[in-house]
């Protein structure tokens, strides 16, 4: 593999070899969540609420239980009552979301589950479970949920973060606020002030693989779980909580995961599968249908956001006022906190007030989705920024450059930024030929930017040197987008052996130390750092063994290009191969573990440029050109960095143009299918051009920043700004469907 131009100093980092798990995935061998079959395995099926909000009066399982071939039927009463046991509120929510007890809080909420010898029987048995409900009035949006006298989901919910605390319960779980300077002064200093209101709909992560879990419980209380998740350690913890058992009784193996984007960091099926397996004494497989995935998992929040911003004629932002309300779904925990922290963080604004509300409503509990909270916030602020730039006749990149956060800027959420690459992404767009490419009739161009923190958190890795001089790199981070490749590249770089000699493995919860979920764009950074640490321990050991072999002190031994060398060249080098082959004589097998809570997280920025063409008679928007520039810190695996950038953009395009949850008046989802949810298909899109910007993160051994999430932050505003440029109309409600575009065009021409 040739050295790359970008990384002349590295042999492996920054190259584009074939991914280690690729062969299994192009030949159909890879085992995903639903692919495992165990001897004697039963098929499970979940019974779900048809109502958005109802009290469960009774559940009659007798008809289902009496069916031939039905081996187990469970309901909420088969699980411990965590509330009665004094558990933490967030654990109680997890348990109640896994299976309802007194009330169902959304259409699709689990009320029971069955296991039977065939799929068909399980489906018939699920239909035979009779549930009697008292239907309660429901609230679907933040507007309905925050209205006076709105029906309450939780009778004891007192809004947190309000001083003094309210004396009445409401659907508002909490309030967040960020404030600096003097708003009045800031708006007074502005030459132009623009105020707009935005709404966005819940959107689903849209992974193609439905949730799936297989559980096999033993008589002694232990159970094995195979599941598709972004973190099998987290699944172990959640499942133990819901079942009321010790984590030590559960072993969780990560199947290959068919997409997650945040939506597989939470549990749905695992505790049900374990309980069904315990009751039946047989292994049980539970797999969701697509409509269950839509009705009961994900999505991210629908929102209402108001933004008021001021700018001077010279292009300096003077003040910003933001009000946001985020749907949390059935239980507290929308990403409004992150939205509040990110909404204006990309810019240096002296005076601001950001206020946000976390609001429960009768929809599925929201789950993390790629940079949770940031995309909706950026849609609002980047749209207003576009209006401001137009109002003072300033180039949209220049206005962002004039206000961009740089190293040392006091971020709106508190601390000063370390070295970041926002300006570099803006410049990458500005210098790209797309920025000045000619536009055709009915075409328009939009720019938008985005910021995301990225995460560190806990990771463990083990590196084993095999007797033939190859190495096995064991981690516990499910590989969702090619991370095994980046682990192998860094290990090859460290050990000085070929990439092909490294076998990266994702091990079960009993085989490797703890790892937090694959999320927050953290794996290459944090698990990568654990791999690097473990490799360095191995090298230390190899040097010691070489020193022993040569009878010299360890400081006389260097590790260069995969071999031990004596500093003065007085000994013939000892390769990893040679040392491994004789490891028994020098102290036994060579192996090292590293575990860490990763420090040195590097923030991510993305700037994107979008050209659209709008059919003025039908309102249909087509993306004709798209360019994304993102600071990766260092692209360990450029193929998969681009993949993250492109994937994030296209999810954002779907969010911007077509994707939404549509509910009927009873609170039932009307479009729980890929047909009517309308995610982008190949023919909807042009190539997504990538400009990888590399401003190395000084706190990481290879300069890594997370790359997975920030790409989804700018697209909705980039599209809205491009539509404005093409048509003159400003869309403020997502998705910007042909219907909404045409309505806006009609209004404009009236």
């Amino acid at each position, binding site marked *: 593999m040739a050295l790359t131009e970008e990384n002349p100093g590295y042999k492996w980092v920054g190259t584009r070899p074939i991914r280690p798990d690729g062969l299994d995935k192009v030949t159909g061998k890879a085992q995903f969540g639903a692919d495992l079959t165990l001897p004697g395995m039963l098929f499970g099926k979940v019974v779900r609420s048809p109502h958005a909000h109802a009290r469960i009066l009774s559940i009659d399982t007798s008809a289902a239980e009496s069916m031939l071939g039905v081996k187990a039927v469970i309901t909420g009463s088969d699980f411990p009552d965590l509330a009665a046991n004094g558990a933490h509120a967030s654990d109680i929510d997890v348990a109640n979301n896994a299976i309802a007890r007194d009330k169902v809080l959304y259409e699709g909420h689990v009320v029971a589950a069955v296991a039977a010898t065939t799929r068909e029987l399980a489906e018939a048995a699920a239909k035979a479970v009779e549930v009697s409900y008292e239907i309660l009035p429901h609230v679907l949006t933040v507007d309905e949920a925050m209205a006076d006298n709105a029906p309450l989901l939780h009778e004891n919910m007192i809004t947190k973060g309000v001083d003094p605390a309210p004396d009445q319960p409401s659907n508002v779980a909490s309030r967040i606020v960020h404030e600096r300077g003097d708003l009045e002064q800031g708006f007074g200093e502005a030459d132009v002030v623009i105020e707009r209101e935005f709404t966005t709909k819940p959107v689903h992560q849209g992974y193609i693989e439905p949730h799936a879990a297989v559980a096999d419980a033993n008589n002694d209380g232990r159970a094995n779980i195979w599941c598709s998740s972004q973190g099998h350690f987290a699944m172990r913890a959640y499942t133990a909580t819901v079942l009321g058992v010790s984590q030590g009784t559960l072993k969780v193996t990560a199947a290959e995961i068919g997409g997650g984007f945040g939506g597989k960091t939470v549990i749905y099926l695992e505790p049900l599968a374990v309980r069904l397996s315990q009751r039946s004494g047989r292994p049980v497989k539970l797999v969701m249908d697509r*409509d269950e995935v839509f009705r009961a998992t994900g999505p991210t929040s629908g929102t209402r956001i108001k933004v008021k911003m001021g700018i001077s004629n010279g292009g300096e932002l003077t003040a910003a006022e933001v009000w946001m309300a985020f749907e949390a779904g059935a239980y507290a925990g929308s990403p409004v906190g992150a939205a509040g922290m990110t909404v204006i963080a990309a810019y240096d604004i002296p005076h601001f007030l950001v206020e946000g509300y976390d609001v429960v409503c009768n929809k599925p509990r929201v789950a993390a989705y790629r940079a949770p909270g940031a995309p909706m916030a950026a849609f609002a602020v980047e749209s207003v920024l576009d209006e401001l730039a137009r109002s003072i006749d300033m180039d949209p990149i220049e206005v962002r450059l004039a206000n961009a956060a740089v190293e040392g800027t006091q971020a709106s959420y508190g601390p000063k930024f370390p070295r970041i690459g926002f300006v570099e992404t803006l410049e990458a767009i500005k210098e790209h030929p797309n920025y000045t490419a000619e536009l055709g009739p009915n075409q328009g161009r939009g720019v938008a930017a985005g910021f995301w923190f990225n995460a560190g958190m806990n990771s463990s890795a083990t590196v084993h040197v095999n007797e033939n001089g190859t190495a096995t790199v064991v981690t516990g981070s499910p590989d969702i987008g090619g991370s095994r490749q980046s682990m192998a590249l860094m290990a090859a770089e460290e050990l000085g052996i070929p990439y092909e000699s490294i076998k990266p493995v994702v091990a079960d919860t009993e085989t490797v130390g703890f790892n937090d979920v694959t999320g927050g764009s953290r794996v290459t950074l944090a698990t990568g750092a654990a791999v690097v640490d473990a490799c360095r321990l191995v090298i230390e050991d190899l040097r010691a063994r070489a020193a022993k072999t040569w009878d010299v002190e360890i400081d006389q031994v260097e590790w260069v290009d995969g071999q031990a060398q004596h500093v003065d060249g007085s000994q013939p080098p000892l390769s990893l191969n040679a040392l491994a082959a004789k490891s028994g004589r020098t102290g036994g097998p060579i192996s090292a573990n590293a575990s860490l809570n990763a420090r040195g997280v590097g923030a991510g920025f993305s700037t994107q440029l979008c050209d659209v063409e709008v059919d003025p008679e*039908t309102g249909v928007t087509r993306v004709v050109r798209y360019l994304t520039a993102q600071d990766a810190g260092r692209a360990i695996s450029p193929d998969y960095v681009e993949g993250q950038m492109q994937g994030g953009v296209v999810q954002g395009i779907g969010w911007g143009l077509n994707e939404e949850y549509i509910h009927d008046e009873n609170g039932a989802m009307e479009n729980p299918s890929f047909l009517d949810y309308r995610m982008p298909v190949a023919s909807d899109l042009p190539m997504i051009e990538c400009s990888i910007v590399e401003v190395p993160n000084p706190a990481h051994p290879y300069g890594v920043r997370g790359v997975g999430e920030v790409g989804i932050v700018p697209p909705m505003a980039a599209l809205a700004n491009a539509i404005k440029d093409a048509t003159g109309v400003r869309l403020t409600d997502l998705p910007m469907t042909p*219907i909404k575009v045409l309505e806006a065009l009609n209004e404009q021409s009236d």
Partner: protein
Amino acid sequence: MKYAAPSSVEEATSLLSSSPSAQVFAGATDVVPQIRGGRQAPEVLVDLKKIDQLVALTSDDKKWTVGAATPTVDLTENPGFSQEFPGISEAAGLIGSDQIQSRSSLGGNLCNGSPAADSVPAMMVNGTRALIAGPKGNRLVDVSEVVTGPGQTCLDSDEFIVEFEIDRAPSLTGDAYLRMIPRTEMDIAVVGAGARVTLGEDGTITAAALALGAVAPTVVRVTAAEEALIGTTADEDTLAVVAAAASEVCNPIDDKRGTIGYREQVAGVLAKRAVLIAMERAQQRNGNV
């Protein structure tokens, strides 16, 4: 649920007559999701694809005959058919993905009874007739009369469509089908428009047909527009009348896929555009059918 695959029309007819709850299917691309979604639960599934007559595609001097279960890919990949009826061919090519078109059929698309069925406006403007078989014998019904309401047809439970007949297109005749969907593929039409025109030697329209999908409980003809087109060259003024007539004839609903106002407005736009494409094709097809 039992599966049956009769090999003749007669066998299929007697099977349907003797089964109280039978569902015929061709590609099953609508039937499977309906069964899966619990919207129907037949006792017998009658697969029509093993009957040769139902999967044939032939032509003679007078007409094309399309088996009701013929996969739509057979139409889109048949150059003779696609040159003569590009509108039907492009409508057939819009029914779902390539995967779907390996299985979907004109018979299934029609009998599903959806007002948004893409092939129906295109078949209607070409005067397509359906040959329906049943225990009392065969009957020939104009396609425009088959669907009586959303999900409803004029077929008895023991009847099914055997084939479609489409008269050979005269020279100087062109057809077109357009639909509006939010994505570029894999959607149900929010509005669909099929048009056909025949020109006289002087280039003016001597015959016209225009049908709209997804804007009323069934596919509708826009007779006012058809009349307005006769004797014209589909000039701008006439097209404005066509568009207005198309919007006028709409009787749509607000649903998850579109609003009344949007459907009415875009029906006019697509009607106009479909007529223009049909005109262009008619001009190019001067006698060499």
